[in-house]
């Protein structure tokens, strides 16, 4: 069992609690750097998508997990970032200023969309962001001068300082921006701004009485979240290499929401777990779609019971139906909220505590008390 022996306030302020933590995170860093050497280019580009999704996850985590504002329109910010970057590259602006401008533009859009957030709460805000996303999608359709509409906007691999980035090296570019976003976000979360967000999430009235200006901190959260989404969008543009308006649809927004909830609300670790989950899920479903009928069919021929083969065909046919994937996503979302509200990260913490306290682990450690009565009068 490991005890954390704190000897200085700096330990609570620092990025790592102690040397053991630092060691494990460095090991993870080395593993992340070495990964492309062990894998084929195909898998490396797929993992780049995980990294980009993780940035999207951080963006939405700030808003949903820390500030408590639920957005269903984040695919639109991703789209704005991607199209802005694609357009700037097309008109010949170098890569770094182009990304910077894409981030600035999405941040500004976030600030504008964030304005209604000052007046709306809960489901009403979510609906407003949904409406925003639908409007933006129409803009992508029709503003052909910039987006080229349904003809699509091709985006080549990045060229930075005259050096063109290969598909394998694109992974490192994404990794760099992911680590940067994690670091910046962590910095905000351990300083007054991050605490103000958490305070707004848990009790607006108390936050206000402690000196938090609700409107300003909600706007900052929205703008910062949108800015990160813009950064992710710029990278995403390179990843998919051909932008079309229908990519940035509502299903993508729901995917991002799924990412933060399944990953674990209120933790930055959760964004990574969630990104891995969301990227892996479609291939897993497609593998199941092919494998279940085949394996059950084989079982039917070997045992001679035709019913097993029929069941396999039925499952395969069901999984192949359009829209089933979205249904499965929804089912997973409901199950996670019911069974493990803290998502994969919550499960991870439990496993870690199990091993670090073995054999003294008590299940009751993580039993949550039911909340006490809370005044609704002032809401």
């Amino acid at each position, binding site marked *: 069992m490991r005890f954390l022996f704190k000897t200085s306030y700096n330990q609570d302020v620092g990025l790592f609690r102690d040397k053991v933590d630092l060691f494990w995170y460095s090991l993870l860093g080395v593993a992340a750097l070495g990964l492309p050497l062990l894998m084929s280019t195909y898998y490396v580009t797929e993992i780049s998508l995980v990294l980009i999704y993780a940035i999207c996850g951080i963006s939405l985590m700030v808003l949903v997990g820390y500030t408590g504002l639920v957005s269903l329109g984040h695919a639109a910010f991703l789209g704005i970032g991607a199209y802005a970057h694609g357009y700037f590259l097309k008109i010949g602006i170098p890569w770094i200023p182009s990304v910077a401008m894409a981030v600035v533009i999405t941040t500004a859009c976030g600030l504008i969309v964030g304005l209604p957030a000052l007046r709306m709460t809960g489901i009403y805000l979510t609906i407003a962001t949904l409406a925003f996303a639908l409007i933006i999608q129409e803009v992508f359709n029709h503003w052909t001068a910039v987006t080229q509409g349904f003809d699509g906007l091709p985006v080549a691999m990045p060229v930075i300082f005259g050096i063109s980035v290969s598909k394998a090296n694109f992974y490192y570019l994404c990794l760099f921006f992911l680590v940067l976003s994690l670091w910046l976000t962590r910095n905000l979360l351990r*300083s007054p701004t991050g605490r103000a967000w958490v*305070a707004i999430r848990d009790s607006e009235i108390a936050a206000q009485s402690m000196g938090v200006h609700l409107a300003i901190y909600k706007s900052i959260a929205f703008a910062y979240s949108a800015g990160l989404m813009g950064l992710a969008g710029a990278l995403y543009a390179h990843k998919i290499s051909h932008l079309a308006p229908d990519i940035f649809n509502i299903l993508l927004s729901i995917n991002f929401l799924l990412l933060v909830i399944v990953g674990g609300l209120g933790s930055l670790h959760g964004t990574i777990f969630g990104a891995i989950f969301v990227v892996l899920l479609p291939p897993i479903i497609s593998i199941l779609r092919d494998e279940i009928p085949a394996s059950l069919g084989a079982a039917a021929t070997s045992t001679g019971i035709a019913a097993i083969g029929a069941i396999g065909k039925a499952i395969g046919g069901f999984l192949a139906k359009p829209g089933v994937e979205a249904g499965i996503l929804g089912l997973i979302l409901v199950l996670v909220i019911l069974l493990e509200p803290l998502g994969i990260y919550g499960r991870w913490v439990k496993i870690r505590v199990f091993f670090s306290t073995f054999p003294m682990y008590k299940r009751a450690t993580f039993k949550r008390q039911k909340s006490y009565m*809370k005044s609704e009068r002032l809401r």
Partner: protein
Amino acid sequence: MSLFQADNLSINFGGIKAVDGVTFDVAKGEVFTIIGPNGAGKTTIFNLVSRIYEPSGGRLVFDGNDITQVPPHKIAALGIARTFQNIELFEHATLLQNLLLARHAHKTSGFFSELLFLPSVRRKELEHREAVEKVIEFLDLQQYRDSFIVNLPYGVRKVTELARALCTNPKLLLLDEPSSGLNVEETEDMAFWIQDIKNLLGITVLMVEHDMKLVSAVSDRVLALNYGRPIATGTPSEVQSHPDVVRAYLGG
């Protein structure tokens, strides 16, 4: 010399006059308690003082300045802190984070220096931590420092509310029913702490309370309200024996 004055304070909710022409002043260094039956307007006065409600008439004066128009998020920086009757802690944060948030009014860093976590931000964080640790020691909360509020028992949450209010470095502390839901022992502790806050920290306390034992033990002066109107002011024993107060509580 009075630290806080409410001058002819009124608020209407539709046709109901929840607070109707209440005037009182709180002297520096005293414990001033507002009592009254349920619905008398005690918490409403607190919400008026912390500027969550907009008064329909009257004036609030704190430290010689009119605060009737000050926005609610600036109240803490002026030196008025409050607790809530039904506990409004940040439940999914640790006790330490709750207390650190109370230092928000003393924040000096801008967004971009926090984004990069410049040395100045770190220095200020350590300063906040030191201020918070003093309060933790004062109220004996050391063992709960890293616990999440959702996992803490009710009694500790109540003390945490008090601690959070103290962390803002207030001149005037508003306590909304500090003893509600506490057992006899915890209420006694609360009485000691309120006396210590007054005597050792020199903070003026404005309190709403139902437990008359606690009220008599700690208050210097008491204001009794009924239906939003003041009915008696004076020492605890004077107010308790005032015929109008007896009538308000017992009827008749």
